[in-house]
């Protein structure tokens, strides 16, 4: 795949798929979760709407699973191709480059585990997608800690990914615009982290 003629297309699509649809889905997901801070019934109502969307399997396949695992598997290949050197070159951008790869691996593992514990249990083992399913998982403090790491890690990966997407697609060219969007995407990281962590604590 990498050695072939389509490397350029794959890389551009890899960058794009992280934002649209995967990043957009992550944001919607965290917003839906946030309803739990209004109470169990509010969350169950919101989750119920998501579970009963029309053409659900089509939406899940093309908006979630195919782009998600294309991004994840190709991303692993990219992550392990780099020779991280923050020890010798401790510049802020180089740290963000390293963290982007680290959080990519964390998110891959976390999301796969999360899908196993929720989606797979609901589809194949008769669990019900409601407040109690999540509350049961994060009842264990280790699981809760891993969820917080997973959520903050994925949100970082998404926010920093917006910054690199803007460069990869040639939108932010000048150092000035790159600096501006570094601040904007950091803001996105902080806000989405707060939303995500407050939501998971709503289940604990």
């Amino acid at each position: 795949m990498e050695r072939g003629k389509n490397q350029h297309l794959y890389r551009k699509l890899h960058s794009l798929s992280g934002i649209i649809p995967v990043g957009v889905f992550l944001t919607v997901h965290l917003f839906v979760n946030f309803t739990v801070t209004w109470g169990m019934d509010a969350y169950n109502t919101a989750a119920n709407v998501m579970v009963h969307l029309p053409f659900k399997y089509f939406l899940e396949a093309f908006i979630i699973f195919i782009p998600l695992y294309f991004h994840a598997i190709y991303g692993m290949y990219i992550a392990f191709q780099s020779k991280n050197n923050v020890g010798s070159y401790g510049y802020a951008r180089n740290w963000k480059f390293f963290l982007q790869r680290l959080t990519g691996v964390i998110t891959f593992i976390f999301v796969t585990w999360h899908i196993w514990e929720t989606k797979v249990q609901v589809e194949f083992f008769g669990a019900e997608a409601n407040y109690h399913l999540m509350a049961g998982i994060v009842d264990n403090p280790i699981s809760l800690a891993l969820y917080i790491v997973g959520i903050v890690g994925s949100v970082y990966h998404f926010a920093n990914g917006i910054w690199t997407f803007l460069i990869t697609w040639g939108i932010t060219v000048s150092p000035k615009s790159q600096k501006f969007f570094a601040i904007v995407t950091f803001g996105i990281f902080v806000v989405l982290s707060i939303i995500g962590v407050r939501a998971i604590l709503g289940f604990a």
Partner: protein
Amino acid sequence: MAGDSKKIHLIITRQKDANSQPYQEEFLVPYRSNMNIISALMEIQKNPVNAQGKESTPVIWESVCLEEVCGACSMVINGKPRQACSSLIDQLQQPIKIAPLSTFPVVRDLMVDRQRMFDSLKKVKAWVPIDGTYDLGAGPRMPENTRQWAYELSKCMTCGCCLEACPNVNDHSPFMGPAPLSQVRLFNAHPTGAMHKDERLDAIMGEGGITTCGNSQNCVEVCPKGIPLTTSIAHLNRQVTLHSFKNFFGNF
């Protein structure tokens, strides 16, 4: 006099030939004012005795211009890639650690083979083709403001510091590195060079091309000539995005 005067302590990573294992050797070189790494290495050449007082061999390095414009004497000095000629002893912390660039195959000691960079320049057609059977006459003029930033890009001396610092330039990545990419921007900005813009863009859309960049932006930090490499890469990202849309949807 020589015995009790100030010494410069050098720790040099050496290698007998391309295939042997690297090793470290220490040297104590007599100090003079205003020395640089090259003149310190010349002292070893004059008297190849290491810090233990044992007879050694002169340390091999490559250098040409001695004024930081040729790029030949790049090496890793106290952990950072830079030119030996412009690395002044008085400004370096001792002991001074000197190692060859790790991205390129070592020929011997501090001398490396930067051929892959020149191959990349050929691959991306980093020139303006004007040869033919008749005189083409004067080309179009370059606007002055373009000339000003293009001049900055033309300072690239293929020294290899940006490739050395880039985490995506390594043995298991085909990435050509920032230097040849920036040259594509330079030659695409040239009014005559722009006539072959598409060929250069096609070249950097191939294997090891522009999308292999991971935006660590180390290159722009270490470039000794202060070339805006990350701006070049971002600008080329825009050029290839537009180019690929034109390729697919049609260019009219």
